[in-house]
């Protein structure tokens, strides 16, 4: 057993994979902003990534907002600060929970879907066929998905913010005896544009990560159904880790 060489080999493998992904993501970013553009594909992906994700985002947000209000109330009563429930709910939802939970939910729904779809096209030679038909799969398949995710995730997060705050409002007014108009007024007065902006910036970055890592895993899959399954799993795991890591980095940068 040679632990140092094993650790070294594993480190190089991780770095190599990261380098390949960075290269792929760079090519995808260039394909998003240079012609030819496939508008029809982009609009189709807007529907798929954005519109069809609304139910899962809405449900997640309403329950998180409700649970957050309950927890803040319980914690706040320990030092007579229960009146801060609306303030902390809106801050927590817009700055952190809205974008992160929307990102994580879409890492499961969208990233895995993209990896499975493009992976299946890879193992059935559809990507090769596309290339021989003078169409670059990077522009036809990857760019519309990445662009759609970058555009729709901030919109989804905005929806999640509103529904999350509403979840907190429903619990606070329904079972914690808060006055509705006062709850909403406190929410509005405490909320700053910077809080929402931070969440939207995070959402755009998460959108890029979700689509790019799904496409990367699918694009490089091999080995039939097993390989496609592995690509989908790796996409979800990779997107989750990168979302959480970039969430910390963006927050730290913004706070600094």
């Amino acid at each position, binding site marked *: 057993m040679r632990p140092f060489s094993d650790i070294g080999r594993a480190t190089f493998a991780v770095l190599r994979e990261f380098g390949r992904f960075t290269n792929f993501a760079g090519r995808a970013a260039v394909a998003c902003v240079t012609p030819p553009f*496939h508008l029809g594909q982009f609009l189709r992906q807007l529907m798929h990534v954005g519109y069809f994700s609304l139910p899962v985002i809405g449900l997640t947000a309403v329950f998180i907002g409700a649970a957050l209000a309950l927890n803040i109330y319980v914690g706040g009563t320990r030092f007579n600060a229960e009146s801060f429930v609306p303030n902390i709910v809106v801050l927590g939802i817009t700055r952190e929970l809205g974008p992160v939970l929307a990102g994580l939910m879409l890492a499961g729904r969208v990233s895995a879907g993209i990896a499975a779809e493009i992976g*299946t*096209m890879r193992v*059935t*030679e*559809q990507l*090769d*066929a*596309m*290339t*021989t*038909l*003078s*169409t670059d799969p990077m522009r*036809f398949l990857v760019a519309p998905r990445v662009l759609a995710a970058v555009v729709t995730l901030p919109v989804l997060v905005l929806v999640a913010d509103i529904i999350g705050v509403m979840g907190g409002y429903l619990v606070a007014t329904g079972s914690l005896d808060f006055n509705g108009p006062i709850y909403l007024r406190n929410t509005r007065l405490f909320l700053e544009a910077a809080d929402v902006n931070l969440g939207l910036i995070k959402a755009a970055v998460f959108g890029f990560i979700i689509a790019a890592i799904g496409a990367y895993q699918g694009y490089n899959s091999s080995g039939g159904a097993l390989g496609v399954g592995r690509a989908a799993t790796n996409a979800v795991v990779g997107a989750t880790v990168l979302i959480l890591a970039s969430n910390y980095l963006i927050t730290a940068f913004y706070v600094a």
Partner: protein
Amino acid sequence: MSTPQSSAPKLELRGLKKRLRNRQVLDGVDLIVPKGHSLVLLGGSGSGKSVTLKCTLGLMKPDEGAALVDGEVFSGAGADPKRKDEIQRKFGMLFQGGALFDSLTIWENIAFRLIYADGVARKDARERAIATMKQVRLAPENADLRPTELSGGMQKRAALARAIIAKPDILFFDEPTTGLDPITADAINDLIVEMSKELGCAALSITHDMASARKIADEIAMLYQGKIIWRGPAKDIDNSGDPRVDQFVHGRAEGPIQAVV
């Protein structure tokens, strides 16, 4: 950088070498396919046929050597990336499994190059797709179906229609009859011969189906251990004088080629 030459063969493979997973898959493959000729590349499983095709089509980069189209390097050392798209438009390719796009209808699959690479209006592209469907004897009623709703033989016809719709100069066929019953396979072979003759293009096919090879080939070459070991007119395949070719042609397990099991 090379330039197109009118006297050059339509397709030429020059010393193609490719090593994969510590195995020399191609070890200097040389082939020439003149305009209007059909060459079939024979070889057992794992002999490097598909890798030859992928290196020729630019889907895989050869370690050494090059594929030339009209005397111009397309794939390999010396290829000009700016010319790739233009040269690629001369190709039509029929993939082994059809490789039709699941998310598109049959007519959209057939007209894919016209719509997305050539910018032809969808209405015109549909008309041309349906005309090509008739050419390959695929009923126009199937135009709005998805590939999964067609039988294997019909999918092959649709894939053939996609390969020929833009009137290519060179047609490539990867195991065109694999997975088809003998009658459908023969019908596909007839279509390949008919379409190749009609378009007057060069054709490079890879197969291990001898019946298909005899039907569609003007010339046959045999690939073994990454090298072309025999090449000649299709009618001479039974008198090659090479025991490895004889063993393959007659499908015998006993002989100089060891079966991979």
